[in-house]
């Protein structure tokens, strides 16, 4: 059953008479529990798709269905509520608030939702344990390594038990070892919790962990491969090059 469905999703930038199509009539459907990687050359619209799905950006036309509701009709407050209750984000940079401890950062979506602090912190510590940071919960972000920071961000994305996790190049800033750690964690989450994940990445080694890879070019899907976790990085790289120069 599809948990997410986009319908002719389109986003243009620039003046209406000379529009730049960042996303062009995109139809994408993601099943519950699926781990999807989105790949494509720079400027192909990967991030934009993610922002549209996450309600951070409004579509020029088309619709985004999350479960049974069309999120493109929601107002700002409802979108905020949706983000903290049903979506989890991991970005490349600036994921954590520097003045808060890891546990407080993770607890933030719950606290914003009005969950009493002790309870929110308890849930946050559980999420941190899941990503292997139980002993780092009282540390500030500056006291964590890049990989640890991204795992904390993942814990925060998980804490509210969202319908969907959206990650935009979460490993883009990491060395290969930390990068592996983070993506393994994502894979494990998908397996253990049956968590739906959409991940944007440039890195074929990272994409290889996904169940499915969607290739984008000029805002359109040009290829859609189901790997079932059997991906091969070299094969993916080859395909990516093919897409880029086609």
């Amino acid at each position, binding site marked *: 059953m599809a948990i997410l469905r986009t319908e002719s999703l389109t986003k243009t930038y620039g003046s209406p008479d000379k529009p730049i199509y960042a996303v062009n009539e995109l139809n994408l459907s993601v099943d519950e529990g699926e781990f999807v990687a989105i790949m494509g050359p720079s400027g192909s619209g990967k991030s934009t798709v993610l922002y549209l799905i996450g309600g951070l950006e409004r579509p020029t036309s088309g619709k985004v269905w999350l479960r049974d509701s069309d999120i493109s009709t929601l107002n700002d407050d409802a979108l905020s509520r949706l*983000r903290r209750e049903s979506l989890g984000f991991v970005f490349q*940079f*600036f994921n954590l608030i520097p003045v*808060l401890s890891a546990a407080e950062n993770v607890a933030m*979506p719950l606290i*914003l939702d*009005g*969950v009493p602090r002790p309870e929110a912190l308890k849930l946050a510590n559980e999420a941190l344990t899941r990503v292997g940071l139980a002993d780092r919960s009282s540390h500030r972000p500056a006291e964590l390594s890049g990989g640890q920071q991204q795992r904390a961000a993942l814990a925060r994305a998980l804490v509210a038990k969202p319908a969907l996790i959206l990650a935009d190049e979460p490993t883009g800033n990491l060395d290969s070892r930390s990068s592996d750690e983070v993506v393994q964690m994502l894979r494990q989450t998908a397996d253990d919790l049956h968590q739906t994940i959409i991940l944007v990445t440039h890195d074929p080694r990272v994409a290889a962990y996904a169940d499915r890879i969607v290739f984008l070019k000029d805002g359109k899907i040009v290829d859609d491969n189901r790997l079932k976790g059997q991906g091969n990085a070299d094969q993916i790289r080859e395909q990516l090059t093919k897409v880029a120069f086609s």
Partner: protein
Amino acid sequence: MTTKRNDWRATVGQMTRMGLRYLNGRRLRTTLTTLSIVFGVALIFAINLALPSMMDAFKQSMSSISGADIRFTSTSGVSFTPESVLPQVSGVAHVQAVTGILSRQFSIPTVENGALGSAAQIQLIGIDATSATAVRQFAMSEGRFLQADDSGAAVFPAGIADFAPELKIGTVFPLITAGGLKLYTVVGFLAEAGSPSAPEIYIPLKDAQAAFNQPGLINTIEVSIGAGADREAVTAAVQAALGDGFQLAADTNGADVVGSMEVGFAIFDLLGVLALFLGAFLIFNTFRTVILERRHDLAMLRAIGATQRQITVMIVIESLLQGAIGTAVGLVLGYLMVVGLVGVIGSMWQTYFHLPAIQLQANPGAFVIAIVLGMLTALLAGYWPARAAGRTSPLDALRPTTTASVERAARWNLIAGGGLMLVSVLMLVAGAKTAAGGAMLFLIGMMIAAPGLVIPAARLFSPLLTLWFAREGDLARSNLVRQPGRAAITGSTLMIGLAVLVLAAALVSAFTGLLENLAGRSFSSDILLTPQSVGIYSGVIGADDSLATRLRALPSVAAVGTMRYAPSTVNSEPVQVLGIDPNEYPKVATFDFPQGDAATAYSELGSGRTAFITSIAQSTLGVNVGDEMVLQSAEGPQTYRVVGVANDILTFKVAVVFISQTNMAADFHKSEDILLMANLAPGADKQAALTDVQDIVKDYPQFTAQLTGEYRQTIVDLSASAMMFFYILALLIIIPAAMGLLNTLTINILERTREIGVVRAVGGSQKQVRRMVTAEALLLGIFGSAMGVLTGVAISYGFIGAFGAIGWTMPFAFPLMGIIAAVVVGVLLALFASILPARSAAKLDIIRALQYE
């Protein structure tokens, strides 16, 4: 899940925690921006804590005549004839006995202290022994009370022993009177202790009337009522019998002292409010910087589901925290200020004035005012930046804003700010009433317009920069122009500090100009005889004709002019009435007549009931030349016609009505001279003449004789030292403004870490990077100074104009020195603030900088 959702307390609690951590993370900045709240709150709290306590101590010393059941005085405080009044009172039912008293509290000159020991003030009470003893009991501890045919006899309360232990029955001592020193003999001591600060001296009514030169007059009615009668009912009946011109004796004695204390305190209050107002601007700017600085954090919070309102609440909480810290520290500082003040003046207060010790009272009003103002300042300053923060898009952390939208916003700012400034200029030139509002509006308009001014200003000043810094100058300019919002905040922070500096300089030069102008014109006489206190005449014993006559008799003296005093009210507004002789006075003194000419004004003052009023009286009473006003006098309400507006240096601060001495004698029963001025004959030796005058004044120790020139200089010097306040205020604002500048400059550099990395990577030397940053700071400095000077000129024009509304018309002198100082200070501050960021930018690790996002 047991989770209770949407409990806003949890969110607010967390926001508070975060706010505290952010503030704590930037301790220096927090401290400095909070300083202005601290000072504002401290001033306001201190004043409102000290004032009632001091008033209380003061009033306590004023009310010590006791014993009678009911006491009445005239509403205006003037003396009156007993014959017309006492019979009316004795006719009232249940009134047992009535007596008339003439009393006055006054300071005694130090030369007099010999006999009365350490007493600085006394209350001379003239009583009619026969009727007074019927009204109340005078229990004696030693000797006898006054008798009907006494003359030159005096009775003291027992407490006089604390001041003058040598005083015995039979001691003969001198007292100042209007007719010169007069000798009295002690005949008895009362059993009651009397006033602890200003001892009473009871003398026969006739002697008191002679001492004050008010023959046949009294100023207080004392009434005793029959046993069992209802005191309130009898009081009401007496009031009805006496009519409007009389009131239950309040502590009118010293009311004008209390009044002038209140004026002084009001000025401090105003300074406190001004400090808070400017503090609000600094906090406002700091929060705008904070929001830029934390753009990523805010956007991230939005991305993970914070609503706009939650973000706004978060920033508001943070500003309230800052307000709370500032207010708390301000309260402590204010308290310490009061304790210090009481420590310093308290001992003076007791030794010189013998006033009871000041008891600080926990005064809830003072707390409430200080706390409300402190928190309100922070709230107002934080609210708009908080709203803007709420509108942060979650994508701000992920994507840069486009330059097109920045430029559009800058254009809107220019239009809105320019519009406001246009309106404010109209208000500035429209007149005194709107001038202060116009000044504030100009400041706000300039702040709004600032982002739109960055680009034109950069274009205007860049040739200068290119000349000095070559290529790096161009780079600096393009950096500045790329983020006009940021440059505008830095520039306007500097602007506020410098505008206040220009304002301070302008106010000081305007006031000094006003004072010197008035001082130069006010006294044209050669010699001046002043009482113990100039300006507050109720506690003064003047001189009768004898002094002026003796002065006129001196061969070296050509003319003598005098001034007389009576209290009064116009529409229940208290005014000082000063009596002058329209023929003699112009020979020795000059008024500044803002309207009309002197000759006609003086000739009109000589005929009928006519008056001059000071500009302050003109605005407080709302009367103009040609209008009539009703003065409460000893002869009931009297209608006077205003024939001129006149100021001099002694009266320009107070509401004064000048009338002829003839009218003063007739309506106010006063003929004591309280100020005398003498002109010398042509060719007379000033110093020799002064010696002659001082010889005569020995018999009137209440006066001091000096050359007018010296006195004038003392007044000008004294006032000039008060001007230091303006400079201190300017300093209080400039220090936080400098920190704000340092702050935004540092953020500027941090934000551009990556660009600086690129500059270095493509071969820019450390020196070039440093020059680039310095050039940018300099450009900002010039930009801020230019805005500061413009705003400074506008607000000083407005404030100086606003004084016109209360009657002080001061010429606006272009504050050239202030402007030069502001530009120098602004540019130096900018350069100073750039030292650290420039160094750290130059030292940036190229690789790390390139990775920085």
